[in-house]
């Protein structure tokens, strides 16, 4: 690497809207470092799609790049349209757990099934943050939120395992306290052919911590650190021992044909046969 990392190459000069202690800034930092280390001097070859929620504001309009900020949950379908028409561009989706694993979950599953060549970064703050702290599909069992004042009795969704089952090329989960691993996961995700899913478990002191009983962001970060279990260890543990644990690691990394490869091959053949007949 010849040039030093400089966020100004990638960001517009606009103030971020995130609360003090929000993990979104950490995710931005690791993502842009990953981009830098892969040799991209700017974001000219990238397109960003996002939906609704705090994490959807990461690229839009802060990244100096094309960004499409869609309706709630619909970032992956819009990314699909872009990627199919422009397979040469790096299409990256940023979204929260509500956006990606709640309202938009079926789109994630189907994009993984198609093995669409995009990267999806899910910032999991375990809560609906922007709307003030309602229970999310990722909220740990027993957590008090504004819509579960007696504690949540729903089991959180293990999204990386789901996308592995659906057929993604790459899936990983790390917390924002695993900076180096998160950055490396994003580098792998950006260079994987096929769907890459990176979950970044991220602190939300405002909407999650306050109601879930954490006094400040330091307490959430400590909880992340103390309760993270590497995937290899988790596989040996009983399910009940994993309640409220955060399993971290690389879930899958495999080379399988991507959707755009197959699609363009078909188009070339159809064009050829239409011309010859």
């Amino acid at each position: 690497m010849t040039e030093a990392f400089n966020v100004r190459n990638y960001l517009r000069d606009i103030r971020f809207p995130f609360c003090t202690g929000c993990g979104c800034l950490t995710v931005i930092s690791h993502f842009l470092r990953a981009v830098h280390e892969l040799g991209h001097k700017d974001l000219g070859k990238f397109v960003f799609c996002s939906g609704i929620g705090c994490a959807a504001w990461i690229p839009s309009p802060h990244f100096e790049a094309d960004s499409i900020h869609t309706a709630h949950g619909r970032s992956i379908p819009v990314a699909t349209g872009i990627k199919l028409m422009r397979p040469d561009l790096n299409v990256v989706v940023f979204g929260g757990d509500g956006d990606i694993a709640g309202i938009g979950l079926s789109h994630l599953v189907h994009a993984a099934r198609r093995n669409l060549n995009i990267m999806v970064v899910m910032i999991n703050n375990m809560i609906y943050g922007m709307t003030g702290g309602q229970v999310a599909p990722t909220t740990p069992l027993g957590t008090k939120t504004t819509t579960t004042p007696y504690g949540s009795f729903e089991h959180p969704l293990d999204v990386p395992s789901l996308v592995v089952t659906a057929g993604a090329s790459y899936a990983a989960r790390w917390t924002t306290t695993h900076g180096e691993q998160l950055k490396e996961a994003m580098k792998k995700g950006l260079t994987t052919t096929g769907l890459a899913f990176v979950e970044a478990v991220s602190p939300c002191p405002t909407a999650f911590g306050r109601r879930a009983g954490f006094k400040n962001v330091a307490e959430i970060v400590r909880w992340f650190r103390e309760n993270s279990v590497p995937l290899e260890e988790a596989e040996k543990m009983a399910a009940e021992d994993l309640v409220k644990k955060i399993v971290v690691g690389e879930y899958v990394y495999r080379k399988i044909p991507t959707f755009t490869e197959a699609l363009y091959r078909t188009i070339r053949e159809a064009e050829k046969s239409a011309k010859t007949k």
Partner: protein
Amino acid sequence: MARKETSATHFWQGNEACAEAAIAAGCRFFAGYPITPASEIFEHLALRLPQVGGITIQMEDEMASLGAVIGASWTGAKAMTATSGPGFSLMQELMGYAFMTETPCVVVDVQRAGPSTGQATKTGQGDVMQARWGTHGDYNSIALSPNSVQEMFELTIRAFNLSETYRTPVVLLADEIVAHMREQAVIPPPSQIKILNRKKPKPTDKEFFNGEDIAPMPLIGEGYNVPVTGSTHNEHGYRFTADRAVHDKLVKNLIGKIRNNAEKIVDYESYNIDGCDVGVVSFGCTSRAIYETVELAKKKDFTVGSVRLKTIWPFPGETVRKLAENVKLIVVPELNMREVFYEVERVVHGAVPVVPINKIGGGEMITPEELLTEIARSVKKVD
């Protein structure tokens, strides 16, 4: 697959004519979800689009279908989806998004009898208001209404042209009858088909939204670094989620670009209206009964003329108002429980009586005889 040249006389199904028109208009991306009675559009394009280098994809639902269409449109593709009432309901969130972000795209709604699943294989005209007011908030719509296989072709082309010209989603509001029937369609050579394309920005341009005129549309991946958002935004695409003035200007301009050009967008067909006693205002499959009704009325002591709406939105208000000045009575036959009727009543504003003729379900149309009977009864009341 050996095939006849597009420019020829065909015996086509309406949905097939729509699909071929999309290709002729330059559509190279289609995303859809199966639904009766619109599926043939997708099926035909799935076969035909790859032959001309285009893409079709079956998405997981209708939200995803319109989402993919919007994404493709921002890469510069002319893009389309096709559905029926239930799917059109699901698409409403992104209809608003496409309107707000000024994304050209064509949405075909082949109407069937609703609400809900209703009668999936039977025709209906109950989505007129959904095509106008289906999404939330303040907006404006363009919806075209074909009444023949020939018009499935012509109005699909026009839907793309309007969508590219005004940078807005355009609805082709077809119905099961028009979409499923087969009849002759005469397709002119490409040189005689008028195709319009969106205005592209100059490299120095920085304003891509919300112009007094229609702003040029940058494509993603071309270095414009354009932020696109469904939130309230300024000319550059930057979000202003609390500023009253920015929202006011944006929404009024978006509505204005359709309202102020309504005269250019509005399209209708008048038939036998000079000196007629009764004016029939109709659209889509229902309007196919008019010509015979006019003939049948010649044996009666009143004469019938017709204004057939080819554009439902913007509503051809001026045309209907002028019709009201020359007739004693207006009747509005439609296969729903009164939708266009209220619009006619609004613009006529009491000048003459407006009589609704409604029929729903079973795929039955209003026959010329039924229409004539209802007209005769209404004429008697007026006299």
